[in-house]
């Protein structure tokens, strides 16, 4: 989850009359987890469904509501202007079909705001922009751009001076030689044409979703902004724009509209949506009995607007709250505005009868029996490695089930047997006193359209006098006591066990596993210094399905 660094003093300025303690106490009840705190700085984690919390301006909006300083929905004031327009050419429709935008004027950009805007842009790109694939933003110095603009395509030889550079580069050069080019170039695929926003002088403004032109770079001297969002669908692009617009208006900019036309594009509406919710649903879901007016004031504290219409509450949701899908989201907004700390836990009077799963009961009995026989329970991962599962035990690796791109070398393959893990455990404990007797029950994985998960049971015994007879006695006792099962053993061979001291285990004529003395090769591989005996049987199909 994304993390944002906040300054208490700046938040105090943004929110109004509020103490540092009130802020730090309220942050968690907005859904912001405090990661760390250091005097004036606090780092909080926010949920990706609330991109408006990617700036302190957005968080201040939320806190104002929660603290009752300013409640209700924020209304966007966008002056209709004919000065700014983007004409879209059909060439973009197969690559990145939609563009949208806004103009924000007469703001003060200091270092702090600049930092917040860059942070917001990054987080929007990573989160709802899905690493710029779905939508991406460019923020520009309005006064360096000559309108009207064209959103069109160029070939890969087109040249302009990209952000943070002083030299002209070609599109292909940018894609091959810059970090952003290498990271996001894949979004454009192999197409010969790439999207480009060009101004009326023919100068490049932006090469979405990769990089802006250097000329429109915003600095602390910039007064007026032009924001464009491009994307693969119109709604997502406008959602992202709505976050930026909300933040800029709150930061003190005056907004003016940009007219978008051509190739199925149109101007953004950025209008609030209305959702109707029944107060009964809210009270039922929360377990409360709130009056309609209390619900309305709670929703307002969540920075929404609400009014009564008949038996229902009509809620007005600003465009930037596109995380709200329907009435259940309003249940949550009510709870947040009401204050989660005010919800008191209760116990339901309804009666249901609980039951442990029969398989869990049987496995627990089996482990009690093994403990009675002097065996200690071990626990190993289901995800193991080629080394432990096959190399050390000399087993043939035929049908391996592996996972993709594991970050851990030790966890790459699903185990098809429990025994190798137990031997690995013994090898890690050679300095501990003997005898060492371990058992484990757990899931093993076999390939079978797609996967057959079986419960398996294995045990090992390691000490100077360990022998076949001992381990056969143990398994015989365990299955007899646990499940009244008689075992028979038949001479067999197995890569991990010593020739002549290996047996397959049969119950009612059906082979259920293998037992014997671990062969010297495996013992040497594991660097164990005493004889080891062991067995493994499949419980699935034997004592349960």
């Amino acid at each position, binding site marked *: 989850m994304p993390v944002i660094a906040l300054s208490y003093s700046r938040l105090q300025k943004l929110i109004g009359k509020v103490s540092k303690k009130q802020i730090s106490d309220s942050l968690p009840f907005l859904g912001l987890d405090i990661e760390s705190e250091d005097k004036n700085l606090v780092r909080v984690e926010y*949920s990706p469904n609330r991109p408006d919390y990617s700036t302190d301006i957005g968080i201040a909006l939320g806190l104002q509501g929660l603290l009752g300083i300013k409640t209700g929905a924020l209304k966007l004031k966008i002056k209709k202007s004919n000065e700014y327009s983007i004409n879209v050419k059909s060439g973009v429709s197969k690559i990145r079909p939609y563009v949208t935008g806004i103009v924000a004027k007469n703001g003060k950009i200091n270092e702090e705001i600049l930092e917040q805007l860059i942070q917001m842009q990054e987080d929007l790109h990573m989160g709802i922009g899905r690493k710029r694939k779905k939508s991406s933003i460019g923020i520009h110095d309005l006064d360096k751009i000559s309108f009207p603009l064209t959103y069109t395509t160029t070939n890969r030889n087109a040249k302009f001076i990209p952000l943070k550079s002083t030299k002209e580069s070609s599109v292909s050069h940018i894609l091959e030689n810059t970090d952003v080019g290498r990271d996001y170039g894949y979004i454009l695929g192999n197409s010969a044409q790439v999207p480009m926003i060009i101004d009326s002088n023919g100068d490049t403004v932006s090469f979405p979703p990769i990089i802006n032109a250097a000329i429109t770079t915003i600095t602390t001297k910039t007064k007026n902004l032009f924001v464009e969002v491009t994307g693969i669908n119109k709604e997502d692009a406008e959602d992202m724009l709505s976050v930026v617009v909300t933040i800029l208006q709150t930061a003190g900019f005056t907004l003016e509209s940009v007219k978008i036309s051509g190739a199925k594009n149109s101007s953004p509406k950025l209008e609030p949506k209305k959702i109707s919710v029944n107060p009964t649903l809210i009270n039922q879901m929360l377990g409360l009995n709130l009056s309609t007016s209390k619900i309305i004031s709670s929703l307002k504290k969540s920075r929404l607007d609400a009014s009564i219409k008949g038996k229902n509450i009509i809620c007005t949701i600003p465009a930037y709250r596109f995380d709200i899908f329907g009435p259940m989201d309003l249940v949550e907004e009510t709870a947040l505005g009401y204050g989660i700390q005010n919800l008191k836990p209760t116990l339901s009077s309804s009666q249901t009868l609980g039951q442990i*799963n029969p398989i869990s009961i049987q496995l627990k009995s089996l482990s009690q029996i093994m403990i009675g026989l002097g065996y200690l329970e071990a626990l190993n991962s289901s995800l193991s490695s080629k080394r432990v599962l096959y190399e050390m035990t000399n087993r043939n690796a035929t049908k391996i089930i*592996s996972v993709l791109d594991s970050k851990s070398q030790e966890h790459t393959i699903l185990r098809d047997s429990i025994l190798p893990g137990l031997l690995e455990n013994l090898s890690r404990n050679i300095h501990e006193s003997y005898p060492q007797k371990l058992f484990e029950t757990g899931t093993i994985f076999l390939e079978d359209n*797609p996967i057959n998960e079986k419960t398996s049971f294995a045990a090992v015994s390691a000490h100077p006098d360990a022998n076949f007879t001992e381990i056969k006695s143990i398994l015989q006792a365990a299955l007899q006591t646990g499940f009244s099962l008689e075992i028979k053993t038949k001479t067999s061979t197995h890569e991990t066990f010593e020739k002549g001291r290996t047996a397959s285990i049969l119950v009612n004529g059906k082979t259920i596993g293998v037992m014997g003395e671990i062969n010297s090769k495996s013992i040497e591989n594991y660097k164990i210094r005493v004889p080891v005996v062991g067995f493994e049987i499949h419980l699935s199909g034997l004592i349960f399905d």
Partner: protein
Amino acid sequence: MSQVFHEIEKKIISVLKTESKLTPEKLEKLTQLSPDQIRRGIEWLKLKELAIVNESKNTNFSLGKNGLESFQKGLPERRLLDLIKKNSMTISDLQKELGSVFGPAMGLAKRNDWISSNGNEISLKNYPSSLAGEKTLKQIGEGTISESILEKNDLASLLKRPDFLVENIVKTKEISLSKNAQTLDVTSSDSGAIDVEAKVPEVFVARTHPLKDTIDEIREIFVTLGFTEILGNMTQPSFWNFDALFTPQDHPARELQDTFYLDGISAKKIGTPEQIRKVSESHKKNWRYYWDINEARKMVLRTHTTCVTIKHLAENKPDEARVFSLGRVFRNEKVSYKHLVEFNQIEGVVVGKDASLRNLMGIQREFYKRIGITKIKFWPTFFPYTEPSLQTMVYNERLGKWIELFGMGIFRPEVTKPLGITKPVLAWGGGIERIAMLKYGLDDVREFYNNDLKWLRGATKCQ
């Protein structure tokens, strides 16, 4: 200080009081104890600083094969001189008489000018009264003699001769009482008492794994709260792990870097045609993207046990239910002191008429109370498939801070409706290792899967 003595100790002390500096062998005779009892008794007394053991090294000699022959018949040169003492003899007669020792005897006699030769005839010139080595031979005889009693030069002459002497280095112990022990009155101790303060050997119990104990405890608590346990597979089609839970196909959690996908394995059957159609419609409408059934078919290692409960609800559509699922879940993470790739999770649901967020909070509070956690609070949070969503924060005294434990919420209608679930569903769940860490006071979660016998044998079972 009152001391308790073992019978063995008492006997040894009594004997040593009358005669000090005794070897273990002598102690054996005087106390009538076995060598093993003496050995143990001395060790105990040494530990109690009541006995002093002086160890010394002594070299003993006994006669070898040739030495014994010379002891019985005389040294070879002596035998030669005796043969010719009265009359001279021919070389061949002497060879017959002396056999293999003829050569060395002749050499010595010539060198020392004891004999003279005239052609084949050997006759006596001087007859020495004593020969080097004769004294030592006599002293040792058929016995064993300490080096200290023997004459150095005489001994040295025999040492040069092959197989005359057998050297035997003996370490001897002499035991005497320390000052403290000399005044002890061992007879006054209670007869038959043993040293109950002494250390005993360590034995280890066989036991269930400490993490399993926590799992069992949590399972039983929820059963007593009216929940029924259900089981499900660890390998799941993405459909049940993600799609059915309203997690869009381009959601970051679904990426390879967070979720384990099984290499090249897809499920043919993932759900009923209606389930698939309705889930895909919900995704298309709310998330606005092209929903790909092949993505939903990809098999993953479940990232939560919620896939098991949602499938159960979709199949049974109960009007009222309390069920939970408990088991391993997987995340593609770097293993560290706080992260494992594989850990245990419990996840449960409540379906019923009076299902509400406050009731859900009540179940949580009751659960925490039963595992001994009373200081808890709830914070809002976000999960893609619940709305509203909360997390429990519990206060840990040892760490002196609030720790995030179980998450909870009400399943979104976008999750339940497509699956035909009409009643509201409360859901809660979280990792078990975290609770077990608090319980066992661990700071490194990896400990649970190291199977380190020192820890497994030593961890306190009842906490």
